[in-house]
């Protein structure tokens, strides 16, 4: 008896039933549909905001203009980025990338180590569950004492909270390796490194990527949290809190818009990487 039908084959089997719809969703018709829905939603929002005229809900047109004015009205040679964009958005993204990178590496590494051994998993699990429940803003006193203000503290706080989804998912993925394959590896006398590279990682990869995607969206949120830390001098989250304390709601909305766009772009990028590494078989769009 061959393996149970993978989602890929099942999807393929369903495809005829569901019509020629690509779940990854990039046929021209689908793209058009998405854009239409998006535009409709935006139009509704604009109409509602203008009708209500509240200072708390500026119309999307004004928000977009403010965002343009803040970040994208710079010189052409710098890809239209303003000084503010270079001074705030780029460092924020850089710190987020560093935090996410550390979280990814540490999470995958620790996850593999913990997942390999049932005993190690049982040992670490309660501590992990405890640590991941700690709300980031509450740890400020600890960070202030242990780390230097600015980038080190921010990157550390992002990494500290972003590591858990990767770690837990990697551990689960490694634990779920088909025992049949482990036996095959033993028969082939693969050494631990080969086993890792050819067996554990590839079979855990879908779940690792699920964890990475969770962690990436979490990193974006944590980026904002981290810029609440003392000693922050620049950044997207910093712009947000500064605008909040000055009651500059238009800028607050503009930052939210930017965060939404960034999140969307980053997620799409990670999906593309995932598809490259895993192939279309296991499309998780």
């Amino acid at each position, binding site marked *: 008896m061959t393996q149970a039908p993978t989602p890929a084959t099942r999807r393929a089997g369903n495809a005829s039933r569901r019509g020629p719809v690509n779940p990854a969703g990039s046929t021209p018709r689908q793209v058009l549909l998405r854009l239409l829905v998006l535009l409709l939603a935006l139009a509704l929002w604009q109409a*509602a905001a203008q009708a209500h005229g509240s200072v708390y809900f500026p119309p999307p047109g004004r928000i977009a203009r403010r965002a343009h004015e803040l970040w994208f009205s710079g010189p052409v040679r710098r890809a239209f980025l303003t000084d503010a964009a270079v001074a705030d958005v780029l460092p924020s993204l850089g710190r987020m990338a560093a935090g996410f990178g550390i979280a990814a590496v540490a999470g995958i590494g620790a996850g593999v180590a913990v997942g390999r051994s049932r005993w190690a998993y049982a040992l670490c699990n309660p501590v992990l569950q405890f640590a991941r429940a700690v709300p980031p803003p509450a740890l400020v006193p600890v960070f202030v004492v242990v780390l230097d203000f600015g980038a080190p503290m921010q990157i550390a706080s992002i990494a500290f909270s972003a590591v858990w989804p990767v770690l837990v998912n990697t551990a689960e993925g490694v634990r779920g390796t088909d025992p049949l394959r482990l036996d095959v590896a033993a028969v082939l006398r693969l050494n631990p490194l080969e086993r890792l590279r050819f067996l554990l990682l590839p079979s855990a990869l879908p779940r690792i990527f699920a964890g990475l995607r969770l962690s990436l969206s979490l990193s974006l949120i944590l980026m904002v949290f981290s810029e609440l830390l003392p000693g922050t001098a620049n950044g997207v989250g910093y712009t947000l809190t500064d605008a909040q304390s000055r009651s500059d709601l238009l800028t607050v909305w503009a930052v939210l818009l930017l965060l939404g766009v960034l999140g969307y772009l980053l997620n799409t990028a990670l999906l593309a990487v995932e598809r490259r590494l895993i192939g279309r078989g296991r499309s998780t769009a």
Partner: protein
Amino acid sequence: MALPRLRAGIGKPAAVLAALTLLLAACGDDDGDSASTGGGQTKLTVAALPLTDSAALYIARDRGLFKKEGLDVTIQPVQQSIQALPALAKGQVDVIASANYVTFLQADEKGTLDVRILAEGVRVAPHMMDVLVAKDAEKSGIRSVADLAGKKVAVNILNNIQSLTLNAILDAQGVGRPVYRQIPFPQMGPALERNQVDAVHAVEPFDSAIQGELKAKVLLDGGSAPVQSLPISGYVTTQKFASGHAKEAAAFRRAIEAASKIAAQDPNAVRQELPKYTKVTADQAKSIGLPAYPTSTDVAQLRRLTELMKKQGLLKKDIDPATLLVK
């Protein structure tokens, strides 16, 4: 598939429409009104910070001054006055005590709140806040105020009263501006100790606490000229409350002014009150520097503040504080 084609495109826009309707309904809601009269005493809810700024409020409550004016005041603690702004806007609280003027004047200018100042709260007094440096600051080159130019100074909130007053003092002395970093008061001690910043602008009781623990030196009195007696925070409400409950507003102001008089004449009353509503211990309360509690609202002083704010770019338009006072 049996599903009619019609459903396909309608799903999400319908959801969006529903969500928007909900939102609009929510903000179209009449702002609640927490003030209520019952049994001769009007109930008022006041949000207050656990700082020396709110001392007059607590004195008024504990000495029965509110009861005398027919007010039943409930005090809700809040960490930063801006956190109480949404509650004030929605009518969940009637007054915010120790409301940071800079924050609320900016909110008024931006239109998020129609602010009215009921009564003054505190004004700058000598050594109620100081610029502190580490005890070995000479080694890192900070010997006097002039050395602050370009150095890192910690303040509690950026672009607010502390940077406003410090900039004014330094401008008057012809010293360049420092670079500000936002650090909450409790973390200023660790930050200074680890040389993350060159100086901290700390308010009491953190001022004395840091001096005690780190043997930090006072580089500059935060209350020096030209900001002496500058108003810092006060009792703020909305135009809606002030016009809808004019009698209660006047009664509240009378009680506060009476309490401020007690505070101004007898600092020990304040020192005894502090441990009851702040985290300041009785020992600390005996020796910390207290702000000035004005016994009446002086438009001229408030005008000094708005002019200073306009000069340093914290306000874009000219605001005449007289228009914001509750008559």
